[in-house]
């Protein structure tokens, strides 16, 4: 059930993780570049850190779904670690409502903020003051990817339980 959807989202998050992960390289180069300018040319920049914080934010929001896809968001397994896969899936199915609610509210609030930001063409509060609304749109997309990956997990857990039940009935 929904396997086509799961496949698309899995691939999408893998693709996003693999492409946008490379942003760590420009982040590193900008940091080094700024230090060199400051010490060797005595000309610190005002814009490097405004870019850097956006690179950090991009890495985090776009990495959220990727990390969920690969089970990297750690939980406490002491109690449920020994459950059989279908039982574990049942537990995860119940707690997933917390995920959808928490991340859903965050996505809703981020969307409201992004819409407002686009309307007023918001600038970042710094000396350089770059436009910040493209980054806020990106944040909404990142949280959406995380949410969709949660839906995939939900469908997979559901399938696991249904498969078990149909096997029991045979």
């Amino acid at each position, binding site marked *: 059930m929904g396997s086509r959807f799961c496949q698309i989202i899995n691939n999408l998050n893998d693709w996003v993780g693999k492409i946008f992960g490379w942003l760590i390289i420009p982040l590193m180069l900008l940091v080094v570049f700024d230090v060199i300018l400051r010490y060797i040319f005595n000309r610190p920049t005002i814009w490097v850190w405004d870019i850097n914080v956006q690179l950090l934010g991009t*890495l985090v929001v776009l990495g959220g779904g990727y990390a969920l896809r690969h089970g990297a968001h750690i939980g*406490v397994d002491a109690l449920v670690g020994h459950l059989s896969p279908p039982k574990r899936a049942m537990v995860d199915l119940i707690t997933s409502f917390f995920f959808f609610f928490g991340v859903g509210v965050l996505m809703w609030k981020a969307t409201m903020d992004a819409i407002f930001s686009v309307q007023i063409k918001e600038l970042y509060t710094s000396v350089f003051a770059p436009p910040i609304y493209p980054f806020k749109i990106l944040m909404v997309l990142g949280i959406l990817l995380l949410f969709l990956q949660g839906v995939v997990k939900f469908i997979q857990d559901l399938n696991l339980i249904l498969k078990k039940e149909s096997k029991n009935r045979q």
Partner: protein
Amino acid sequence: MTIGSITIIIWSFLFLLMMTGFPVAFSMLSIAVVGYIVFVGPQALYTIFPIVFRNLTTDIYIAIPLFIFMAAVFQVSGVGDRLYETMYKWMAGLRGGLAIGTVAICTVVAAITGLGGTGTVTMGLLAYPEMRKRGYEKRMAIGCIPAGGALGPLIPPSIPMILVGNLSSVSVGKLFMAGILPGLICSLFFMLYIAIRCFLNPDLGPPLPREERANWKEKFISLRGVWAPILLILLVLGGIYSGACTPTEAGGIGAAGALICAAIYRNLNRENLRWAVITTMRVNAMVMWLVIGGASFSSLCGITGVTNFVRDILVGLPVGPMGVLLIMLLILFIMGMFIENASIIMICLPIMMPTALALGFDPLWFGLIFTMMVIIGMITPVFGYNLFYFKGLGHADVSMMDIYIAILPYIPLMLAALALCIIFPEIVLWIPNTMIK
């Protein structure tokens, strides 16, 4: 509703949700959202997104992906292999020498990277099979590796310290420096323990037969292997200590330095770089989503008055400041058995730091003591991250129970070092107080 019952409801729901194996980051985020709606009112939800946004655009957090990237590059750079060769030539002739040397290398790796996994994985792959081949007793060969790995986040740079520093408004640079001596003391304790046990019973770690040992010429030639780590340590720690750069900048410079070392050792191929990049993406997202969840949760605790309530209870306990400190450390120790370290920081520090301040403790000192206790949680069974890292290497002769038993002696050793830091705060404060800036 009284503040007492709100506190109980919020915290028991958080722990209940966490115990189901639901990711800690999302447990905290969703409890925060639900808590805001129930206890503050739905209109207060507008505060959630600005909290997330502010945390994602914090300068000092840029250091987190940079240091993770540096550690990942280091892991594939081949620097560890060269270091191991040097150590082998110098130490293999001693009783327990390979285990002592493994701790020594972990100490050096700890001064380059800020995660517990780097030392554990690097040495777990290199040192463990070699020690077994040379007749080391299994538990002697296992224990020193996850224990040595735990030095990683204690000796700067350190990802947990970045979290602790930013959450409690303590200078991350100073916190880094505060970790140096306690880390070295732990390292020394580990080495002494191994040396004494192997001296008393050479069967635990037999020395290499005389004819197989390296001669002095070979030993000195092998010292070529140590330039790269020394350079990286000077770049990162030297830069921070001298005040030449912030911890974030040191992360960038260190990552670039690690890439250059990898290139010189001809390990900077596309596959290694791709692995380092995607590992950074995953680990950074894990840590930073914990930051997001933790920040939302602690803002709920702040706005409902839970933070102040718990702080006042802890401060009011009739056991004196030291008694309260020990109670907090005990709580951290128990949590460390079940919960991953960055999660413990995000859950506990927002309440424990105000408590420590109210008791009149130095925030830098308490920050370090707190971090140290959380790091001990990396090697305590049942859930110690370093133990799982070691198990994950897939050595066929190692069971989880072997690791649990092998690590046991190292826990009291670290606790003893922690006790020293509590009794003599100068151990913690001396280096940061001599910093130039």
